[in-house]
């Protein structure tokens, strides 16, 4: 019971601290709104490669250009083609927003295909449609590369065959064989390299949603230092000594401090969810239970880590330093500043060990509409991290 009184007192003290309240409640809302809006062109649905409109100019009726248009581009569901008879129209169409990417296929594109070479295709794009341009470029590169491979392979095989004993069978069979090889390889070449995007859940996550989740993950992290600082402050104010003089066990005091941080983290999370839903129109997914479970587990994790930190440090200055630098590093590594997808591989691997990344990924998955099975490992992981950290912190604090 005493633990609950200590926890409630802690929450009241934090609520009474207006600067901390602004920092932990208002700032994440404002940052979400700013980052979500500012990065919308890069991350928004409009730039996901669903529904890409290509402006296509083909200088003549080259057979390879026709194959590329008919058998590749038109077979991809997410691509619409706007044909034009003048190359200069592509730039205009791009400016007017009628197309996302422009492609200009030169005269007799397949002219040098037997030498394994193709003339260059011009690609027009806007800076705010980089993702779509990159996707179309990769389709084009894949097609060109396969055409060149087919052509080159056929040449090599035919050269081999012409010197082998099989030629003795007669020129008719060699011609038939060459034709079969070409057809088979061409068919393979026409298979566009599948563009894989790990689609999780049923919904696509927008930039505003990403940054809402990122800010939730980042600002809840601050509870690690505020929780630890609250402990140090109690010691500096001598209220900790007074608590220890009262008939309250050490365990109850530490549990109370843990619950205080947990309580504030939960309040902060709930206010943030409501704030972003109301003011930034962020959709946090359809499953409130999943969201609360993930948020709760993350709150347990940061509260436990705050106890661990309280057990490791003695000075308020150290806590301030960790708050200023350590939390920023964690937030960066966890994807709260830059989207995780933009990270190089080694950073992606590094980010796997930070709990805020698990929380962020969890929130994004919930927004995308996954089932419980997919987020349960993160929930359990966060919960266990919190409990383990609290126990280690408690032992440290008791022996100090």
């Amino acid at each position, binding site marked *: 019971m005493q633990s609950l009184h200590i926890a409630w007192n802690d929450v009241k003290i934090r609520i009474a601290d207006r600067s901390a309240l602004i920092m932990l409640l208002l700032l994440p809302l404002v940052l979400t709104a700013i980052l979500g809006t500012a990065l919308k062109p890069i991350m928004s649905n409009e730039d996901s490669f669903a529904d890409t409109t290509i402006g296509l100019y083909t200088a003549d009726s080259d057979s390879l250009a026709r194959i590329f248009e008919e058998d590749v581009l038109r077979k991809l569901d997410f691509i619409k083609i706007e044909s034009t008879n003048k190359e200069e129209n592509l730039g205009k169409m791009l400016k007017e927003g009628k197309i996302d990417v422009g492609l200009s296929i030169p005269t007799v594109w397949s002219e040098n295909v037997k030498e394994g070479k193709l003339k260059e295709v011009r690609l027009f794009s806007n800076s705010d449609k980089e993702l779509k341009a990159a996707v179309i470029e990769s389709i084009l590169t894949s097609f060109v590369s396969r055409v060149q491979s087919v052509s080159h392979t056929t040449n090599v095989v035919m050269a081999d065959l012409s010197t082998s004993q099989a030629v003795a069978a007669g020129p008719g069979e060699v011609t038939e064989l060459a034709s079969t090889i070409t057809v088979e390889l061409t068919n393979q070449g026409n298979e566009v390299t599948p563009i894989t995007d790990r689609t999780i859940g049923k919904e696509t996550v927008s930039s505003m949603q990403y940054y809402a989740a990122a800010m939730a993950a980042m600002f809840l992290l601050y509870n690690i230092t505020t929780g630890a600082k609250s402990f140090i402050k109690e010691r500096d104010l001598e209220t900790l000594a007074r608590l220890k*003089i009262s008939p309250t066990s050490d365990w109850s005091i530490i549990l109370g401090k843990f619950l205080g941080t947990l309580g504030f983290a939960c309040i902060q999370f709930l206010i943030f969810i409501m704030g972003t839903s109301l003011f930034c129109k962020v959709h946090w997914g359809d499953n409130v239970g999943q969201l609360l479970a993930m948020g709760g587990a993350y709150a347990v994790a940061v509260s436990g880590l705050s106890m661990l930190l309280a057990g490791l440090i003695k000075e308020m200055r150290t806590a301030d330093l960790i708050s200023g630098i350590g939390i920023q590093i964690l937030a960066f590594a966890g994807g709260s500043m830059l989207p995780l997808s933009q990270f190089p591989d080694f950073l992606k691997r590094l980010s796997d060990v930070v709990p805020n990344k698990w929380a962020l990924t969890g929130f994004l998955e919930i927004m995308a509409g996954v089932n419980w099975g997919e987020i349960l490992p993160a929930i359990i992981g966060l919960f266990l991290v919190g409990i383990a950290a609290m126990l280690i912190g408690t032992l440290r604090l008791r022996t100090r």
Partner: protein
Amino acid sequence: MLKVENIKKSFDQKEVVKNVSFSVDKGEAFGLLGPNGAGKSTLISMICGLVKYDQGDIWIDGLSVKKRPLEIKKKIGIVPQEIALYPTISARENLLFWGKMYGLTRAETKRKAEEVLSFVGLSERAKDKIETFSGGMKRRINIGAALMHEPELLIMDEPTVGIDPQSRNHILETVKDLNKSGVTIIYTSHYMAEVEYLCDRIGIIDQGEVMALGTQRDLCNRLANGTVIEMKLTNLNEEFLQYIKQIHGVERVMIKPDTHAIDICINETENPLPEIITLAVNANIQIETMERKEPNLESLFLQLTGRSLRD
């Protein structure tokens, strides 16, 4: 009520409490007098179970602090030397919190908080945050927090440090009233006047040792053969002081900081005063004033330790 028996405590191999023993009766006001660093706070921390002692034992109402800490904590109230309150919440909220920490019910806590606020004279400031209070008001709430659970033994560790005379008087009256109502008081201070005013019995402590113990009269009677002479001198020098110390009948000599005065503790039966005066004249030192001081705790402390209480 309290029995301290052969208590020893060392920090980093330095003995800070040396074999201390004393007892306090129920309803008594007991003063622990000693300069800063004498070991008073350590002793109090051990009595309330905050610091473990190395040797001996402490008993409160027949219960060992070592063996029954939780039961004992309910019986005692501590007023720490520091303002151990939450500055950003109100006086009432602070009192309610500390009441709950002692297991009071919600109704009891509310009733007691109003009672305590009235007792310390701060009912009108109940809703104000502690950080807006003056030093004296903070000290009064600091005492109030220790009274929430109606302790049988109230231990006050220098509760008047750094406050104005008006607040000090208010606190002293509060303590006096509490004692009259039957609460046993242990009061530590390095202000002799406070201890003299409040306490029935006094223990003088210095460098971790109880130097003297008894009622005020007992202690002053120890000075029956000893007198403290205060002299104001010009051209005071170290050589002169060394000569005085060698005179038969001079027990201690202490220079008063920032003055040209010295306190000389003499044995009246030996009557060393004429020799001191002759020595001053020969050394060309002019005696501006010479005063015999009434025996009090300060002079006793000087006699016992050779130091002032405020050192």
